[in-house]
């Protein structure tokens, strides 16, 4: 861009400290974190660009996805004073019940034994989003650019300039990309991502069981793959059933009654019969990881940086920790009156996140291999695997000491 263009654009350009691209969970959480963490003395000019219209305090559309929040994630939401806005919709996991079809082994992990009231919480995704929106609306400290579409992103030495379709160009010292697995920001910065497919699909549904779950989460190992049942309100559970692709397809296409029966047989009688099931949705298990979490004046957060297969929202817990680290670094820089988009800060973000991510990604990798294999040594090894599994379902991860310390 030539000097003259920069100058002429300046007259209409609104300059921000931080522009968040994407008004999903990661974007909303980043905004809340930056506002809640900053000291009263410092100010931050903040905008969110979102492609869809956002109507705070109103359920946008029916979205039945649920997430399992780890204990650490809930503590963080509490520290931001937003947990009370969503806690009413959350079901605590007080106990995890682990069993293996064909083996007598059974394990129970209780919250009470770990001195916490819950090992984790199951909560509809929409409830988290609404809680965060209500909070943001109440404090009224950000500019909403929604619905808005990005036409071009220009990375410059001192700022990033973002041109919106049919709107003014805005500039920012730091761009936080929360725009999901198909991140436009990631593409604009030419950051490639590595995709690993796991020849496994997950069948997801909400089911109603005969017996109450009593706030237990269930993890059941079968020759075909693991079944996770997460407690929701009433006698409802959120099911994640991991299977080989073909089997997943055929099972999901069964009529409701046959599906319930198939699940009952594989799951065992722990919750009595399976009475009803919602529409079944099948997701291929995949991991998409960006080769870098930063670019000049830009940080990738959440799914924009790593999409983990859809089991039980592990991805969200990981994304939440991205937000936590990034907002702490930004707040520090603000307090020290440093340039919040400086390479030094972004390098720190990249380095401090790398370890967490590679640990989870590595373990997720090996978990899938472990599950899909039915050779005797591995079956015997599943008990060891149960420990490793903490990384697969965040509720179980919650009591790994490392995570308990957040």
């Amino acid at each position, binding site marked *: 861009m030539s000097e003259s263009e920069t100058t002429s654009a300046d007259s209409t350009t609104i300059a921000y400290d931080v522009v968040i691209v994407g008004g999903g969970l990661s974007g909303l959480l980043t905004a809340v974190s930056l506002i809640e963490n900053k000291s009263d003395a410092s100010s931050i000019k903040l905008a969110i660009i979102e492609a869809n219209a956002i109507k705070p305090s109103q359920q946008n559309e029916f979205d039945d996805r649920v997430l399992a929040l780890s204990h650490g994630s809930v503590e963080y939401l509490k520290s931001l004073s937003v947990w009370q806005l969503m806690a009413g919709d959350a079901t605590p996991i007080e106990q995890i019940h682990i069993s293996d079809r064909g083996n007598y082994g059974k394990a129970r992990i209780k919250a009470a034994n770990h001195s916490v009231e819950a090992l984790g919480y199951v909560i509809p995704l929409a409830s988290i989003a609404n809680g965060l929106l209500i909070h943001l609306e109440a404090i009224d400290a950000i500019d909403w650019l929604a619905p808005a579409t990005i036409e071009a992103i220009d*990375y410059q030495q001192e700022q990033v300039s973002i041109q919106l379709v049919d709107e003014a160009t805005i500039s920012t010292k730091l761009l936080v990309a929360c725009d999901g697995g198909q991140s436009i920001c990631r593409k604009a910065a030419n950051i490639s991502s590595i995709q690993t497919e796991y020849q496994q699909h997950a069948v997801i549904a909400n089911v109603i069981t005969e017996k109450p779950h009593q706030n237990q989460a269930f993890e059941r190992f079968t020759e075909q793959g693991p079944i996770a049942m997460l407690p929701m309100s009433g006698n409802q559970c959120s099911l994640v059933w991991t299977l080989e692709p073909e089997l997943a397809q055929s099972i999901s296409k069964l009529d409701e009654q046959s599906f319930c029966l198939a699940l009952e047989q594989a799951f065992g009688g722990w919750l009595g019969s399976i009475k009803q099931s919602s529409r079944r949705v099948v997701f291929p298990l995949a991991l998409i990881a960006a080769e870098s979490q930063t670019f*000049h*004046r830009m940080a990738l957060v959440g799914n924009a940086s790593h999409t983990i297969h859809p089991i039980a929202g592990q991805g969200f817990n990981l994304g939440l920790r991205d937000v936590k680290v990034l907002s702490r670094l930004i707040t520090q820089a603000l307090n020290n009156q440093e340039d919040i988009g400086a*390479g*030094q800060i972004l390098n720190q973000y990249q380095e401090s996140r790398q370890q967490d991510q590679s640990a989870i990604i590595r373990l997720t990798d090996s978990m899938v291999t472990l599950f899909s294999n039915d050779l005797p040594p591995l079956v015997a090894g599943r008990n060891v695997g149960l420990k490793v599994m903490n990384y697969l379902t965040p509720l179980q991860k919650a009591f790994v000491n490392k995570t308990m310390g957040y």
Partner: protein
Amino acid sequence: MSKSLNVNLNEIAKFEKVASQWWDLSGDFKPLHQINPLRRQFILQHVSELFGKSIIDVGCGGGILAESLAKLGANVTGIDMGEEPLNVAKLHALESGVEVSYQKITAEEKAQENQEVFDIVTCMEMLEHVPNPASIVNACAQLVKPGGYVFFSTLNKTTKSYLLAILAAEKLFKLVPDGTHDHDKFIRPSTLIGWAEASQLKCIDATGIHYNPVTENHKLAPGLDVNYILCCQKVG
């Protein structure tokens, strides 16, 4: 013509032969792909922001380092004397949509035309492959701006480096092709620092690049006895 050039034709031929392997992440250059993030990390420890910086990578080969620096927004030139590796580098840059300017020229010739024009000069795993490494060090010093940074990495001349880089990596585990390295050409850090200082470069940091061929673990850590990397700053 080749008489005056600081090039070992056998070395060039060695790399021409395996050029197609450069970007095969599990091929002959796998160790380079694995340690490349470490090199980048070391550079970022000294120059936190590469966006907009002009960088020349001397002995760029297939462009593994050059491309990774360009991806951070640097304006990168890669030079090498191997025709095939350069072709591979150019093709790969097209494929990944990264702008790197590649050129077949010696460091000495490049330095004659480009005195003190680059913010950063990198010269990684290259010095041990040329007849006169001191002359390369001097050329790098001429290419960089006063106050700019030059990064060198190479292999130390120790018994351990023989055991690891040649016996283990080439003969036992066949991580890199047999004959990739010649232990006589390995360079002690003191020697390299001596050449640097004779060329107005001040060595400000040195660290070891540790690579375990069995576990494939790799990390930056003290201990320069095998593979090491230096950061030098041009006086002035």
